[in-house]
């Protein structure tokens, strides 16, 4: 059983489109995250939810909107996609908090905007 699963694995889309990435974890973790990894491999936090409540919302364009229907799911919707949004997006989860416990990452979604 995959601990943190995200879909799709690859996403190629045109500028201006709207797309969603889904994430689910079966570890019973309380906290879930979205990270963006750019071409230089830098991992940047985008959002964090703890028990469905938004606790971290970094400086991200408001075209990005997370949604957590329950503590096992965290989805990411992106409106009006731009070329600069091309990156690998990782979902992750941890037992609690952000600093206290190790993260389990999903396999990533490679988004290419053309």
């Amino acid at each position, binding site marked *: 059983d995959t601990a943190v699963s995200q879909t799709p694995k690859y996403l190629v889309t045109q500028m201006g489109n709207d797309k969603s990435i889904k994430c689910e974890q079966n570890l019973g973790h309380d906290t879930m995250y979205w990270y963006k990894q750019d071409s230089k491999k830098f991992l940047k*936090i985008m959002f964090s939810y703890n028990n469905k409540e938004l606790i*971290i919302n970094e400086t991200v364009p408001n075209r990005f909107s997370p949604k957590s229907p329950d503590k096992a799911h965290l989805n990411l919707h992106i409106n009006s996609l731009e070329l600069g949004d091309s990156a690998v997006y990782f979902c992750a989860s941890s037992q609690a908090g952000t600093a206290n416990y190790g*993260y389990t990452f999903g396999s990533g979604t490679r988004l290419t905007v053309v």
Partner: protein
Amino acid sequence: QQPVQSPQAVILREGEDAVINCSSSKALYSVHWYRQKHGEAPVFLMILLKGGEQKGHDKISASFNEKKQQSSLYLTASQLSYSGTYFCGTGYNFNKFYFGSGTKLNVKP
């Protein structure tokens, strides 16, 4: 608040040792270490909480010097499977956490 990792890249022969450093300009609450292989997700290696501890499993260990606000990852007798990019992550309180820019490790036969 992003920690600084050094070196940026390391090339080793199998069996050699390596040290990767992670330092912060602010007081640390915790340090995480992850390894990411090409095309894969980062994988959690270990976490060190404030207290100046050392942790390890197998031939990979880490230390955390709270006073110096830094951590080091030690890889001894490196194997081909150790190749990848190593990230440290630093926690400043319950909800403030940042990854370093990574150290690319290449172990050659």
